[in-house]
């Protein structure tokens, strides 16, 4: 399959990229990892006249600590994200999600920002990022804005990004002392798989053994966007973490899911799996909370 013709732009700074974007009057796409866009172009689903590549914009490829926050450049690849010490130590749900995206070959190209702006309902990074309360930075020629990732994704392939805007970074606040996150993905195979259901969790405890102070449960692939299960979060809040509580939260999460029947799985099956995956992801979060505490004492 041949790629349609396009004009290629390769800015070296974010400022330059934003200026190019605002100056082109014709259909334009931003090229980051290319694992989604180039496939869509080959299939004829996208035919931009211009491609603005962010591959040479070095400032988008850095992950840096900024006080109590961690700022991930939008063009950091999924494989690079997994190499970051902070992600390994403090964001286990995100670390797991990044390890389950595509294949090792895809992870070496695909970017964190790309997995967000493409807004696929089954994507692996948005649920854990939302569970950790991520915010994102959008830059354009004449300004920038910051908004929560949860509010950014609007539907399958739809976000609130405006023409000329570039997603430049993802900001994560350092998780509190007694807290942990988890991510469980269900697919038919282990690699190159699109989730049938995925669930990301995060909770912060009041002390080493609870009660739960704040919880987030995010369901992926069972709605047009990742869904926060407010019912599950309510059940968890104020309680001590244990198996029975996680099971109750799983039941509640299934009530918040809005799965559909498709050729990959039935809605009923997906609903059942939400229960199971929520329970497992909550267990992971608890394990991580304990592990992080143990590491502090060591």
């Amino acid at each position, binding site marked *: 399959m041949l790629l349609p*013709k396009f004009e290629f732009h390769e800015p070296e700074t974010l400022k330059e990229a934003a200026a190019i974007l605002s100056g082109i009057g014709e259909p334009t796409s931003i090229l980051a990892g290319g694992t989604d866009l180039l496939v869509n172009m080959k299939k004829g689903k996208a035919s931009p006249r211009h491609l603005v590549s962010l591959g040479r914009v070095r400032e988008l490829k850095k992950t840096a600590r900024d006080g109590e926050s961690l700022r991930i450049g939008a063009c950091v690849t999924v494989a690079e994200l997994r190499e970051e010490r902070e992600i390994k130590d403090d964001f286990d749900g995100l670390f797991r999600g990044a390890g389950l995206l595509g294949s090792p*070959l895809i992870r070496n190209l695909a970017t964190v920002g790309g997995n967000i702006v493409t807004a696929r309902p089954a994507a692996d990074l948005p649920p854990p990022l939302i569970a950790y309360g991520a915010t994102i930075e959008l830059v354009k020629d004449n300004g920038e804005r910051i908004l929560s990732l949860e509010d950014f994704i609007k539907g399958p392939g739809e976000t609130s990004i405006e023409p000329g805007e570039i997603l430049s970074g993802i900001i994560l606040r350092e998780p509190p002392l007694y807290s942990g996150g988890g991510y469980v993905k269900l697919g038919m195979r282990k690699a190159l798989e699109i989730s049938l259901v995925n669930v990301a969790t995060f909770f912060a405890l009041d002390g080493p053994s609870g009660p739960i102070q704040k919880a987030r449960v995010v369901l992926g692939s069972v709605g047009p966007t990742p869904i926060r299960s407010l019912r599950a979060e309510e059940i968890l809040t104020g309680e001590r973490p244990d198996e029975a509580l996680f099971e109750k939260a799983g039941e509640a999460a299934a009530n918040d899911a809005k799965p559909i029947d498709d050729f990959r799985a039935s809605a009923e099956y997906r609903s059942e799996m939400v229960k199971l995956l929520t329970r497992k992801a909550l267990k992971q979060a608890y394990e991580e909370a304990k592990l992080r505490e143990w590491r502090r004492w060591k």
Partner: protein
Amino acid sequence: MKTMINLTVNGTKHEAAVEPNRTLVDFLRYDLELTGTKKGCDMGECGSCTVILNGKPVNSCLVLAVQANGSEIMTIEGLKTAEGLHPLQKAFVEKGAIQCGFCSPGMILAANNLLQKTPTPTEEEIRTALSGNLCRCTGYQKIIEAVMSVDKQDIP
């Protein structure tokens, strides 16, 4: 409009004028006539177009040649040693890990990249590292056995 690119492939510098819509796999196969790199699905799913781009295995069907400007690339043609076949290639032959051979260049490059980073990988590490490379002949078992059989001392 064509763009000039400079890149190093298997240690040799190349300068070429390419159309922006030329993918790296097509550039390697048609412009440089390095046909060891295969093109299967052209969608980033099969891994037969795997090359090592700046030290990392990637699907070359998902990279534009212009994006590879300034980079260093290794294809299967770059793997052979002064003594002939690379130990991994020998192991693939000896263990029956090659049948039709279409996935072999990608498999071997991905496996070599793993062995460079992890000289004595576990079976699970091998399976994960090769999970982006599909094989429709061998059922994978013989490929895993071939990678496991390579003596790390032999890797150049």
